[in-house]
């Protein structure tokens, strides 16, 4: 399995002897001894620090099919360098578009995405409910919302329902997390520690999904639940819905309740909360560990990592689109 590399340190990445050479810089801008990264083992690069690079490097990365994701100082996702599409399939493209345009077909998929997402959220809540955190009221109301799922006929209404479910779900965070309070979910900018973590984690999940979609025939811009906008990969948002509870939220609970992150890992600036560099590193490490965790897959009968599950989800989606097999959203079965 190819690895993801996370670049926190400022430095220069260059092409050297047909592989990658990273020359980190210390705080004073002095160059440290270079590190070589075996190109054959790289799946993508995540850039948090200042990265120097030239077009020769990007040509090389493009050829080696390595994507680079960039994040700004406030840990917002700013964009990706995506290598040229290499898995082209006109048929999938056409069918995917058809599934978006035909309302009944689109509703089917949109509904399934919400169903999967809500199921995984409930699973999280039940887990904590069994561990002396009383989140029963939230479980009940999400279940009620779930029953309304089949009554709706418009995608907008489904998005609204999704919003309601998520609001309920986030209320439960207050109970689950020991040290911190969350209050309302705020983004742009996140107002407190938990909100900052959720934003950061969601964005990690989003880039993960995008990275995996790239390795399938699906077109990342045509989505079903979210409205496909310009300049964004909205299919990644759809997929991320299903995996956020499993990958992001569970990681947040772990790092906070195990006190891997504490109040002094955050900085409160003018009505916004920012994670310090060390905190980002800790969280990304925990996230990386989480997505590399393996489980025994029931139908494949072998162990697969959570990261690979995302790709399997893409395969299921393409099968649905081509009419081979009806899509079943991923639901945690353990």
């Amino acid at each position, binding site marked *: 399995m190819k690895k993801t590399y996370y670049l926190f340190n400022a430095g220069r990445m260059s092409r050297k002897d047909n*592989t990658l050479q990273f020359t980190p810089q210390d705080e004073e801008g002095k160059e440290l001894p270079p590190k*070589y990264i*075996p190109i054959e083992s790289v799946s993508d690069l995540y850039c948090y620090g200042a990265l120097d690079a030239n077009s020769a490097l990007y040509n090389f990365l493009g050829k080696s099919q390595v994507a680079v994701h960039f994040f700004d100082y406030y840990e917002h996702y700013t964009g990706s360098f995506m290598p040229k599409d290499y898995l082209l399939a006109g048929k999938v493209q056409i069918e995917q578009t058809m599934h978006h345009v035909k309302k009944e077909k689109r509703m089917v998929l949109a509904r399934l995405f919400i169903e999967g997402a809500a199921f995984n959220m409930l699973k999280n809540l039940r887990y904590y409910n069994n561990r002396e955190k009383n989140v029963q009221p939230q479980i009940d109301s999400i279940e009620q919302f779930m029953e309304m799922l089949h009554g709706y006929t418009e995608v907008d209404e489904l998005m609204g329902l999704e919003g309601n479910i998520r609001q309920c779900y986030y209320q439960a965070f207050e109970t689950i997390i020991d040290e911190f309070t969350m209050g309302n979910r705020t983004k742009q900018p996140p107002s407190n520690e938990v909100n900052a973590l959720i934003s950061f984690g969601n964005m990690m999940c989003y880039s993960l999904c995008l990275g995996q979609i790239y390795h399938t025939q699906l077109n990342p811009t045509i989505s079903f639940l979210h409205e496909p906008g310009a300049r964004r990969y909205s299919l990644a948002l759809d997929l991320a819905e299903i995996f956020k509870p499993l990958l992001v939220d569970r990681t947040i609970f772990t790092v906070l309740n195990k006190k891997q992150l504490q109040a002094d890992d955050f900085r409160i600036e003018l009505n916004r909360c920012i994670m310090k560099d060390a905190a980002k590193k800790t969280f*990304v490490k925990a996230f990386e560990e989480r997505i590399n965790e393996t489980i025994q897959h029931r139908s494949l009968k072998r162990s697969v990592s959570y990261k690979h599950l995302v790709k399997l989800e893409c395969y299921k989606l393409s099968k649905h689109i081509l009419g081979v097999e009806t899509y079943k959203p991923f639901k945690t079965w353990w």
Partner: protein
Amino acid sequence: MYVILVYDIEARRVGRMLKLCRQYLNWIQNSVFEGEITEVKLKELISRAKKFLVLEKDSIIIFKSRDEKWLEKQIVGCEKNKIETFL
């Protein structure tokens, strides 16, 4: 598959071997590399190496293990290059 690759190659050709190995594995010490690699990629590495090696004089040894966790690694003295994905 997780491998440790060591080579003993005449000085004239050693640079080429070093550069080739850097593309596939992590350098850990002079003439020693290790890392996760697939069966096919390892074959590719070997066949590319054979193109410039003189097989009567040079030698490469590859230690294979199914997974990194079956490898117990003990370091005495300094670790020359830590293998990390967080840079």
